[in-house]
């Protein structure tokens, strides 16, 4: 689907500025978490920040004070290692205090380094790859069968697509014509060992999804002008939709971008200051 063909549901430019401000705040939280006692998967968190912020600020119908609201839109972070970005986005949206982010990975807190349902707003425990799409399919199937209005969103890593269970779920979503389900692939092209296409190739990725019966399109994963309308528009009737979001691993911190070394980081004080400086300079 082309962006031009979509209704212009994105608000005025002021909204985009607000999204950029929120995204910057989330990225700063991610770096602060990376500078904490346990570090974090910083590269894949930074690549997914704009997708998460677009979803939580502009797309998902959620009630932060009532996380279990039955008519909410569901979001499942299948690439659970991006927990820092998810927690920071949830905190910025008001699900829990921003100050709690400092407890990430600490024994006296609840912010497990892989998402856990004990955290308000977290729909399902993830971190072992290849589970989230199946969970989203189950949620979407129930909503369809019971006539509920919930939309279901799930964010997958691109390396994660190497897990076979993803394709079991993809088959089921198309079979059950789950047009209330939108998957997003954070296509940052890197996994721990290197570039996906060098390690275990995924291309032609859009064709794979289409062959599985999905409505597949590509989107710039860092452009709110593309992301928000693409996410707001429900799938056309009869099939689930997937957005393959072109992203940059480590996005926002120039010296971490496109680098497999940025997959996980535990930043010392100096590295943190350098990263924060790079982030603010780019913003």
């Amino acid at each position: 689907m082309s962006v031009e063909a979509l209704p212009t549901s994105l608000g005025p430019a002021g909204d985009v500025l607000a999204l950029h401000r929120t995204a910057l705040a989330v990225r700063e939280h991610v770096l602060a978490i990376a500078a904490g006692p346990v570090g974090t998967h910083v590269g894949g968190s930074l690549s997914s920040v704009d997708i998460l912020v677009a979803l939580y600020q502009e797309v998902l119908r959620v009630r932060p004070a009532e996380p279990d609201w039955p008519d909410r839109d569901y979001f499942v972070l299948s690439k659970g290692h991006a927990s820092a970005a998810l927690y920071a986005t949830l905190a910025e949206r008001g699900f829990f205090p921003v100050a709690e982010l400092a407890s990430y990975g600490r024994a006296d807190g609840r912010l497990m380094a892989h998402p856990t349902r004990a955290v308000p707003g977290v729909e399902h425990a993830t971190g072992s790859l290849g589970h989230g799409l199946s969970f989203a399919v189950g949620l979407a199937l129930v909503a369809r069968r019971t006539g509920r209005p919930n939309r279901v969103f799930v964010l997958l890593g691109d390396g994660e697509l190497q897990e076979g269970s993803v394709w079991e779920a993809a088959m089921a979503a198309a079979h059950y014509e789950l047009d209330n389900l939108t998957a997003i692939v954070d296509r940052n092209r890197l996994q721990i060992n290197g570039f996906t296409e060098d390690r275990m190739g995924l291309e032609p990725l859009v064709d794979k999804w289409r062959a599985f019966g999905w409505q597949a399109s590509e989107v710039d994963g860092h452009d709110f002008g593309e992301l928000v309308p693409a996410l707001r528009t429900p799938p056309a009737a009869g099939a689930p939709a997937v957005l393959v979001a072109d992203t940059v691993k480590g996005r926002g911190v120039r010296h971490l971008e496109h680098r497999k070394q940025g997959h996980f980081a535990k930043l010392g004080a100096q590295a943190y200051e350098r990263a924060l400086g790079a982030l603010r300079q780019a913003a």
Partner: protein
Amino acid sequence: MPATAAPPDSDRAAYRCALLDLARRDSRIWCLDSDLGGLERQFEAELPRQYVDAGIAEANLMTMAAAVASTGLLPFANTMAAFASARALEQIKIDIAYPALPVRIVATHSGFAAAHLGPTHHAQQDLAVLRTMPNLTVLTPADVGETVRLIDAVAYLPGPVYVRLGRSPIPPVYPAGAEPAFVVGQAVELRAGDDVTIVAAGPLPVRFALDAADALAARGHAARVLNLHTIKPLDVPALVDAAERTAGLVTVEDHSLLGGLGGAVAEALAEHRPAPVRRVGIADAFCPRPGSHAEQLAAAGVSTDAVVAAALAVLTTRVSS
């Protein structure tokens, strides 16, 4: 033919009737299938809106079931024990047990019930694996009637449940009209006796235990027989009582000697009331030859004769000590 036309003769058939009865009364009860054959003719034909076929994809089956349960519905996820306890184990661990979602995993073909199909479809490890899953209740009924009572008893338990079933026709354990209520976590005394205790779980092991008790009675030994239908949570008081009042315990299971019913009983007694324990279970080997369920169990060391020999060994321990 209506599902309930003929009385079911296997725990699998009894379960399917019980599930349909439950689902007729409560639309929150869903049946998630994985191409098992039969549920589509029975459950789906009558209640299609409460039925989902995941196809031959057990990993997806389990995670979808978790999601269905998270919305407040009560899904029964159907597969074979071999696939529940191995192929889809991570999905059970992370998606069902970790969040303690009320999924009822119902697994047929447990132990050697798949018989001639051999080790690909045997599940001699499911109890060992699944009883280490936090939050999971692990159950195995002994006959058709107990299967129905079990399903009714667990339908509304708050957490996840694993139900271990077989496949073939099985004889009744309880006399008609004398069936006890099914209480999760409470062993059923099938025979009273103070010489030795036989603890069994599942249709054939319980049958072997009862036959062994008869054989022992003929020799003048009164064997207590416990049907330990709940592997987790374990009925420790019943085991401690058996250890205190009888010479020792024999465990009988359609499962590996390692880590199953015998392992659970030995662990509990080692801590709470050390006593002689002899385990009758599947030797630590894959089944090498085809054959019937009972033939394969006998070849692997599980039979009435093996239970009698183990009980006599326990009784000898008492005499010599």
